[in-house]
């Protein structure tokens, strides 16, 4: 990554050229991007329930319809009815209209002169108010009319416009119907049309409005945040530019793959603006740090590439995983979003790592301002003070976070699910208001079906099985689940009632009568309710239940009733849009949990691999689990439902939030190697990361809050919750993260991998002699590697003896200060690659009596007393080998020392003898 970024920074014009060409190619495809809203996109892909639903539609038909609702105190006045009749004639002439159903078309089954009369209720205009009242009363006896085409108070009448399958263009449908409807508005107290085409049209229009409204707002929010935090023109423009290019490419991909813009995918461009800027900020921040330290452009770029290359790669991977994990969901629209957003992020990453070095290479020296203002005063001392305060209040901080977690967890039971397409629209939505009116005055626009199948021809021409249908309908009505259920039984009862001239519809008492009635029944009238061979039948249950939980309970209850009360020979299934929505709800919840878990596991694995310790991964996940808990707690308390928008919030926000933790940990790892002190490394980390982490978080919060202005409720909630998660993660990153990682000694995998010397030296060292590879690795992971320059002190006389040292590369000289002069020392020994020193004082538990100084660039592995004690406690076999090796090494050095001492003694003896000889 480092080398790649260096190449980009040295060939800036090539980068600009390639990006320009690719952008040009992408822009060609943008024209193919279309807006498409469909209920199917909110459903689960490859759902077995969907197969059942499709079978049901094929068998019974399921046409799309628009309800024209007419409300008035006097519905059946002559002028009004004539206007409605004219409207129906005009609407039926429209090419996309199959037919209409209303009191003008629904047969009023009755006997006239002994023969069946199927003339519609409003075949003629009632001659008087009394006749009108009688007619409405008769119509309300008909279950196909009551709550469906006429409200029980007879003040709301409906004309159901049934649309053709082919060539339905929502906008054309709504405009044409509304055009003809305008004539009725003056006649009735209220007159409007509602149905899926209206909901889709409103959503499409809103998407267009949102794109033109929120997109500039997102850019403005990002610009303001960047301006306040960075105050560098190039730094402000660069994130916008990289995001712009990646949006262009993403839209090009959508056009190429024919992925439409819908409620969810329409957020991708804005998200790319918001999320895509974070890596740019980190890179730019590092570059400006370098410049601030006096480095020239290319040097600062080199430092930026070296320090941030792998960090940017890793944080991209986690964010990418966050977005991709949304695609785990089996809901089509979420899958599309996951794929698009993650690919968009990949584009953004590629553009960022190429364009940022290239741009900075060209313009980096244009420092149009003195640097960031907001954090200009945040100096090292302040960071140090903050860290000291944090360390001192460690327990209080953990207790506070623990309490917050408990309070949030207590809110979990309040979480509920809502997966209604109509809820995408805000309270001010016209379609939503109209739908609520339909739900209030009539049986509702939602429905599901109970399908009974015997697999035997003519089953539902037998009274016994018709009574089974009736039993289910009675149960549904008594349970209060629906105001309107209709089935073949209802039609047969109406027919029977008409034939027998009964006051109310009544089911025939014998199969024989059913057979007779069937002679006068047009199958087309009942094909929505019974199969042509009468082996299966359908009950249509219309409802206005908006609560997913309540609907779930009702359907489970219905399943239980059917299982325990119906003929076991009948296969009973419940299907329909509502059931599919429930299935999608389950998929959404499991997808949400899977996404979060997958992401956290992924993060733990990456961090664990990176630092070769599972504990590090687990501890590092704490600051990121906390925001998730807070998110769900807030959802529970604030009555924010789990919906298509909020389901994405946790996974996406966590995918972004872990980046900061990653930045923090990698920075800390770099600092601890350089500073040799945990505390020093920590306040340096806080100092270095404050600007980029706060900048990116503020920019993200501002960006996500833009979504809060959306007219789509789930998106507005998504924006607010994502901002909440980012904000909470920011707080956690500056409190929990430092406290957690300060308890760990971090040796990254790169530290181990990049030094081949250590791979060769360590196994040959006396300290690790006889140990297996994994035992050595285990031991090393509890140590720290420190770098020393020539002349730099490793320890000095009087220091606490808490560590022993293994020279991995370089040379260290150990000497004893002598009393003859302050700078005079006696060199005890020199320790080269693979040699151990400092162990005697540590084992003797005495203060250092010698000084140890690096006399060449030296890399030393530091083993603390604590890690040795841990090894003794937890890995006795490793410890026994270690102590044997230590004893051998000390003994060897002791022998060497005695030999040396003997030589020195002989030398002194010889010198004394020579001195005596000289005197003599």
């Amino acid at each position, binding site marked *: 990554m480092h080398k790649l970024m260096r190449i980009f920074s040295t060939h800036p014009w090539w980068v600009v050229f390639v990006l320009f060409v690719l952008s040009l190619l992408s822009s060609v495809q943008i024209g193919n991007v279309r807006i498409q809203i469909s209920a199917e996109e909110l459903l689960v892909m490859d759902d077995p329930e969907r197969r059942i639903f499709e079978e049901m539609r094929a068998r019974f038909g399921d046409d799309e319809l628009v309800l024209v609702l007419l409300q008035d105190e006097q519905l059946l006045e002559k002028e009004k009815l004539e206007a409605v009749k004219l409207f129906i004639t005009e609407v039926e002439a429209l090419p996309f209209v199959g037919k209409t159903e209303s009191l003008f078309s629904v047969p009023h089954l009755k*006997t*006239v*002169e*002994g*023969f*069946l*009369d*199927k003339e519609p209720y409003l075949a003629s205009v009632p001659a008087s108010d009394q006749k009108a009242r009688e007619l409405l009363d008769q119509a309300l006896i008909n279950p196909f009319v009551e709550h469906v085409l006429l409200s029980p108070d007879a003040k709301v009448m409906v004309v159901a416009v049934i649309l053709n399958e082919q060539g339905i263009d929502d906008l054309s449908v709504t405009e044409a119907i509304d055009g003809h409807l305008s004539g009725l508005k003056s006649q009735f107290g209220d007159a409007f049309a509602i149905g899926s085409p209206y909901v889709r049209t409103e959503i499409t229009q809103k998407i267009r409005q949102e794109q033109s409204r929120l997109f500039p707002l997102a850019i403005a929010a990002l610009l303001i945040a960047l301006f306040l935090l960075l105050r560098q023109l190039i730094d402000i423009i660069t994130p916008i530019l990289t995001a712009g290019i990646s949006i262009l490419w993403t839209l090009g991909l959508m056009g190429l793959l024919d992925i439409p813009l819908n409620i969810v995918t329409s957020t991708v461009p804005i998200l790319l603006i918001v999320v895509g800027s974070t890596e740019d900020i980190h890179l730019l921040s590092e570059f400006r740090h370098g410049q601030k330290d006096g480095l020239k452009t290319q040097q600062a770029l080199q430092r930026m590439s070296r320090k941030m290359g792998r960090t940017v790669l890793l944080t991209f991977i986690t964010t990418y995983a966050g977005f991709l994990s949304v695609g785990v969901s089996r809901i089509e629209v979420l899958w599309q979003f996951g794929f698009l957003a993650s690919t968009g992020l990949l584009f953004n990453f590629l553009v960022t790592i190429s364009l940022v070095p290239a741009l900075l290479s060209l313009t980096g020296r244009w420092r149009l301002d003195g640097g960031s203002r907001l954090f200009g005063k945040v100096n090292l001392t302040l960071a140090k003070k903050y860290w000291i305060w944090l360390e001192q209040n460690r327990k209080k901080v953990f207790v506070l976070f623990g309490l917050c977690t408990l309070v949030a967890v207590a809110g979990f039971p309040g979480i509920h699910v809502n997966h209604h397409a109509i809820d995408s629209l805000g309270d001010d939505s016209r379609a939503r208001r109209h739908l609520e009116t339909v739900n209030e005055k009539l049986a509702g626009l939602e429905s599901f079906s109970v399908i009974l199948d015997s697999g035997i*021809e*003519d089953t539902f*021409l037998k009274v016994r099985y018709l009574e089974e249908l009736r039993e289910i309908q009675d149960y549904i009505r008594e349970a209060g689940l629906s105001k309107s259920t209709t089935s073949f039984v209802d039609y047969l009862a109406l027919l029977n009632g008409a*034939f*027998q*001239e*009964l006051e109310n519809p*009544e089911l025939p*008492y*014998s199969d*024989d*009568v059913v*057979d*007779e*009635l*069937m*002679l*006068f*029944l*047009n*199958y087309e009238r009942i094909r929505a309710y019974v199969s042509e*061979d*009468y082996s299966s039948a359908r009950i249509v249950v219309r409802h206005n239940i908006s609560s997913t939980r309540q609907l779930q309970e009702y359907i489970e209850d219905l399943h239980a009733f059917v299982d325990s009360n119906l003929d076991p020979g009948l296969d009973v299934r419940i299907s329909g849009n509502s059931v599919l929505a429930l299935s999608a709800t389950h998929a959404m919840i499991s997808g949400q949990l899977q996404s979060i878990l997958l992401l956290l596991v992924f993060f733990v694995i990456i961090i664990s691999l990176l630092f070769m310790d599972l504990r590090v991964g687990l501890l590092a996940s704490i600051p990121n689990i906390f925001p998730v808990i807070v998110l769900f707690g807030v959802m529970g308390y604030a009555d924010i439902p789990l919906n298509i928008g909020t389901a994405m919030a946790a996974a996406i926000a966590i995918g972004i939030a872990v980046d900061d933790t990653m930045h923090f940990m990698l920075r800390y790892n770099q600092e601890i190697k350089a500073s040799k002190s945990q505390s020093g490394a920590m306040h340096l980390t806080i100092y270095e990361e404050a600007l980029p982490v706060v900048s990116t978080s503020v920019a993200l919060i501002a960006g996500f809050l833009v979504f809060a202005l959306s007219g789509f409720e789930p998106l507005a909630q998504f924006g607010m919750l994502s901002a909440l998660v980012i904000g909470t993660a920011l707080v956690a990153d500056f409190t929990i993260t430092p406290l957690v990682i300060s308890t760990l000694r971090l040796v990254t995998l790169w530290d181990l991998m990049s030094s081949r010397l250590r791979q060769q030296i360590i196994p040959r060292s006396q300290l690790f002699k006889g140990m297996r590879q994994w035992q050595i690795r285990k031991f090393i992971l509890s140590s720290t590697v420190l770098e020393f320059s020539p002349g730099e002190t490793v320890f000095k006389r009087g220091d606490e003896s808490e560590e022993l040292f293994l020279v991995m590369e370089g040379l260290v000289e150990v000497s004893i200060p002598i009393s003859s002069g302050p700078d005079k020392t006696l060199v005890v020994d020199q320790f080269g690659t693979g040699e151990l020193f400092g162990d005697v004082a540590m084992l003797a538990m005495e203060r250092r009596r010698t000084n140890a100084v690096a006399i060449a660039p030296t890399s030393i592995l530091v083993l603390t007393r604590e890690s040795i004690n841990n090894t003794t406690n937890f890995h006795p076999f490793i410890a026994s080998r270690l102590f044997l090796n230590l004893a051998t090494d000390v003994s060897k050095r002791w022998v060497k020392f005695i030999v040396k001492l003997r030589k020195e003694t002989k030398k002194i003896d010889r010198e004394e003898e020579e001195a005596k000889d000289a005197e003599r």
Partner: protein
Amino acid sequence: MQSADQLPASSCIGELPFTGPAAVALLFCGWRSEGLLLKRIGFLLIGMIALTASGAGMTARMPLSFAEPYSGKKVNNYQVTLPVARSEKRLFMIPEACEAAMSSFASGASQWGTRVEQRMWWKVRGDCQYYGFLYRFPKMPSEDYVSSYDFMNAYLRDIPMGARCAALENPASIPGCEPFPPGVPDLSRLLPFVDRGMETPRIDVSPCQMQNGIFRGRVIQDKDGVHCEADLSAPGFRVISVNYADVNGDGYLDVVLRLIPLGRHAGRMPLILPLTRKDPNGVFTVPTGTVLPEVPGNQ
């Protein structure tokens, strides 16, 4: 399913008898047939000849009323497509093509098709039998003592009540309790029967009368004999058609009532009740020697 419009013209000749409506149908067929103008003219000529022939020496046939399949509405004729073999269906115009339909029925066509289609065969058979029953004797009757009576608002006392009187010691001696010939429906069976015993005081002796072809009520047996009591909430029957013909060829015009039972447990197949009288003030009786078609419920 084959519609009338799609029928080959040759099928018109094969199925239609030389009756008035059939002649009209032939004219229609000729007009709608495909092919050369000459062919069309040929059909029109045949139709006109048939129309002329149908009026000569025949009874002036008044249009009959049928319940049209599937719609149930009142029609004078109807088209119905019925299976005649495992995978063959034919369109019949009833009553014109009754002969062909009955021939198919006799050859076992009613075993094919769905349950509803099989049932439809029985309706066609019933309609055709009724048609045949009415016009068995084409000669115009010379005596008419029935057509002046308003059967849609008939008094039940004028109509024989049949075997409900079987419980009496000597039913044949009591007016209205004469036994019916086989196959003639007993209307009293369509009404609830109340046995109040001989001691029960008479409650209402007012005569029961049909209102626009409907009567709902109950049959009461008490010391005054058998009479009835009207009750709109009770089961009953409805006269769906009143046709006149000489059904037994005795030269007296007869009336044929088609009735359907009313009430929760009633069937829908129309019952046929032929009545006649031989003087203007006489009581109505079932014409002697009447051979009624086999209609379920007529017994």
